[in-house]
């Protein structure tokens, strides 16, 4: 037992990092929270539409069990089920906690929390604060962490960057190497555990809905140090964003949750003002193809349909890759109250008022379901043992991951409004496990020789000195742009092995050119260039993980769509048939004539495919590239079955 407070270093000041910081302080631990910039400015503020919890405020019969089912089905059965179930069961308490902390959630007439609909569910399950829910949640947690800083329980290191883990002779993480982004100093922080709550990697694609800091560099560094990276190929493409030069700005799914309709003119190149196009000349393709979920099909489905309309049917608005997202049938007051934040963003960036004119939108890279491989400790009830030291631990002992940086909660496709939940859930849930982990160690960090820390620091000092000396003729920012374009062109919504091979070669080429980068800034004060070059190096490796995972996975699952391996679900197929089929199989009495024509064949294909591919992709760094293996998924609670939303 330690006779001092347990101390952890948390990297990242988004929802996951802040939630853990708060909880760990509350459990009498000592926290250092490291953030690339000022706390309060993390990417979590960009989340708009809301956070899910099956509180059943509208008496629709919603339950956490249904939330669990929707999430698992939305993720095409690739998520470990006990974790997701535990998250869904914790969700109501999380919403109430955030409410108690002062989040300005919209409310009902009686003053209770209000809920709206989101994609992939038929229930009003999403609590929201206008259309800036992420911002409001970050602020509430940030305030609690500031309170702890004020009270002396936590320290914030803002304008600091995580470079890598300090590993002892047994490979146990004993601290973090930190880079002061102003003074350029590189030093180590000793800790009982280090937590990467560093967010997603979508800057690998250059332009996405991500913030500037979302390079995935911290998670990739962990991978380069030996940690497993899981399900990298599962990148969510959000159906509705505003195309842009520097960023593709998200138009929240809540726009559709509040009644927004997606359509294109029936006539290609119809040049009429959209308001002048009569109903009869509009094609509401999501509503027609998915009469049950309509505009609220899950994101992977909606993105594929929009892509199909634009590129295969050539029906994009004015011949361009865009479709209408229409809210003009709603009153101004309603829109300002419930969607004000995104109404403003659209107006500011396009000069067009979406209350008056339908928005023009297109899918954009948005979220990574994949991330650092992490472990969990299930209990006997199909939930999680919250005290288990395994929870959220990466394959490097003592190094944990949480939030978008881990891979466990969203399977092959994330449902809208589940990301804020998974971030806060992991942050809160893991605190006890980390405490217990610290107790379980035979040797505490205090007994680790200082040479271990010196070596780690010197390694990174040398690395940064080398970077500073890079004097080739490649501009790192241009190279990043090219990496992004390669990924956008070849590893996006519709994937095929030829393009993926092409991307592999293009990435190799970019990696070769990386050696020839020039460090464009030689200042020793607040110089972002060496850090960026290191991040670019990481992004190159991450793009290899994504691309190789995609190339090897010869199937269609969730966001990973390879038409060549589509199992072609019969149009009239009902997922319950599959459950019948499995039962009949168990009793050895399957006959083709029990199912509509073609269905049995389809179900056999589905079963075969799952045997091969219902697996977690695990990438490990070997010989300068990802070595890929597959692991079983925990599907102990809900039998995997074909997805269907119409």
């Amino acid at each position: 037992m330690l006779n001092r407070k347990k101390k952890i270093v948390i990297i990242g000041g988004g929802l996951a990092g802040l939630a853990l910081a708060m909880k760990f302080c509350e459990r009498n631990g000592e926290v250092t929270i490291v953030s690339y910039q000022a706390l309060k400015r993390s990417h979590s503020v960009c989340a708009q539409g809301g956070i899910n919890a099956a509180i059943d405020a509208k008496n629709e019969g919603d339950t956490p069990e249904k939330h669990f089912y929707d999430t698992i089905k939305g993720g095409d059965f690739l998520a470990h089920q006990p974790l997701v179930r535990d998250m869904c069961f914790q969700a109501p308490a999380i919403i109430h906690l955030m409410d108690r902390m002062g989040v300005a959630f919209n409310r009902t007439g009686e003053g209770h929390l209000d809920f709206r609909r989101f994609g992939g569910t038929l229930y009003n399950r999403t609590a929201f604060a206008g259309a800036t829910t992420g911002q409001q949640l970050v602020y509430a947690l940030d305030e609690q962490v500031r309170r702890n800083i004020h009270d002396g329980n936590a320290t914030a290191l803002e304008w600091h960057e995580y470079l890598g883990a300090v590993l002892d002779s047994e490979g146990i993480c004993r601290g973090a190497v930190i880079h002061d982004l102003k003074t350029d100093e590189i030093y180590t922080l000793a800790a009982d555990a280090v937590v990467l709550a560093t967010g997603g990697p979508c800057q690998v694609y250059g332009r996405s809905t991500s913030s500037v800091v979302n390079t995935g560099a911290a998670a990739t560094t962990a991978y380069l140090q030996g940690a497993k990276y899981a399900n990298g190929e599962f990148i969510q493409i959000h159906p509705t964003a505003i195309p842009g030069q520097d960023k593709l700005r998200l138009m929240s799914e809540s726009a559709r949750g509040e009644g927004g309709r997606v359509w294109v003119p029936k006539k290609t190149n119809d040049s009429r003002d959209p308001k002048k196009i009569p109903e009869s000349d509009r094609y509401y393709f999501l509503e027609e193809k998915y009469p049950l979920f309509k505009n609220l099909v899950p994101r992977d489905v909606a993105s594929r349909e929009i892509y199909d309309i634009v590129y295969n049917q050539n029906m994009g608005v004015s011949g361009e890759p865009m479709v209408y997202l229409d809210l003009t049938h709603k009153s101004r007051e309603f829109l300002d109250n419930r969607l004000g934040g995104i109404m403003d963003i659209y107006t500011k960036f396009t000069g067009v008022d979406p209350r008056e004119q339908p928005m023009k939108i297109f899918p954009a890279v948005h979220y990574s379901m994949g991330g650092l491989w992490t472990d969990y400790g299930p209990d006997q009830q199909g939930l999680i043992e919250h005290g288990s030291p395994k929870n959220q631990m990466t394959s490097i002992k003592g190094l944990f991951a949480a939030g978008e940086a881990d891979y466990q909660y969203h399977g092959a496709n994330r449902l809208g409004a589940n990301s804020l939940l998974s971030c806060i859930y992991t942050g809160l849930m893991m605190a006890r496990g980390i405490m217990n982990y610290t107790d379980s160690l035979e040797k505490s960090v205090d007994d680790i020789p200082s040479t271990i820390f010196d070596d780690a620091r010197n390694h990174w000092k040398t690395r940064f000195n080398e970077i500073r000396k890079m004097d080739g003729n490649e501009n790192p920012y241009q190279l990043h742009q090219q990496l992004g374009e390669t990924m956008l062109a070849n590893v996006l919504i519709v994937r095929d092995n030829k393009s993926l091979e092409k991307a592999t070669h293009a990435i190799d080429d970019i990696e070769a050119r990386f050696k020839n980068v020039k460090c464009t800034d030689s200042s020793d004060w607040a110089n972002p260039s060496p850090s960026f070059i290191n991040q670019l190096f990481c992004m190159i490796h991450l793009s290899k993980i994504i691309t190789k995972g995609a190339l090897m996975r010869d199937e269609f699952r969730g966001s990973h769509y390879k038409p060549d391996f589509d199992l072609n679900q019969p149009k009239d197929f009902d997922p319950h048939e599959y459950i019948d089929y499995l039962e009949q199989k168990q009793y050895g009495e399957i006959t083709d004539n029990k199912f509509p024509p073609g269905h049995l064949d389809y179900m056999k294909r589905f079963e075969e495919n799952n045997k091969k591919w219902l697996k977690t992709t695990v990438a490990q760094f070997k010989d300068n590239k990802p070595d890929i293996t597959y692991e079983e998924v925990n599907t102990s609670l809900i039998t995997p079955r074909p997805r269907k939303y119409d």
Partner: protein
Amino acid sequence: MTDKKIPFKIKRQDKPGSPSYWQTFQVPYKPFANIISCLMEIQRNPTTQGGKTVAPVTWDSNCLEEVCGSCTMLINGKVRQACTALVDNLEKPITLEPMSKFPVVRDLQVNRNRMFENLKKVKAWIDIDGSHDIGEGALMADSDRAKRYVMSECMTCGCCLEACPQFTLNNSFMGAATFNQVRLFNLHPTGSMNKEERLDAVMGEGGITDCGNAQVCVEVCPKNIPLTESIADIGRQTSWQMIKNILIK
């Protein structure tokens, strides 16, 4: 592709305390470009108009959609967020300068720690008992919620402070954003339990009485926070508090 260029005049400074200097850049025009996308263009090709290769200009930004508050700077002399400043709507050449009321870190980056320290001074948080599950929060009318919501969108960008004649680099004036936070938390059913502490914090030096009511703050706030209302309200609240303090003593 047109070869139209946008001229930029950028005020630079290498370190805190070192002299500032100006450089000009010509950035290729792209439709819907904003200031940040142009600065990124300069990173990719850090060459001045005179053809000199220089260190890329540094700035702060993150969200690129006016919700994180980080990219505040002076654009053509006016304080605002760079990410929503579309070049089509700006007079050319476009001048960029760091904010003047905060210490410069480098180029367009400034240190806004003072704003965050003020949040601590006024205890801009709710004193919850703990994060364990103790049930629902307090009931609240949606109209009250809506009032708080507009205030809670403050992203600590500092525009209001840069524009305020009372707020200077070296004084201790807290500024409109801080007063707004006091109102935000005093309006919450649980937050109001600590409202006196917050009011005491804005009654001393640098507090609400130093506000000259010039009301420029509200004009520049990118989030349309009702700062004048917040200032007036906190003025009223502190007056009551003052009377109470006297009576109780």
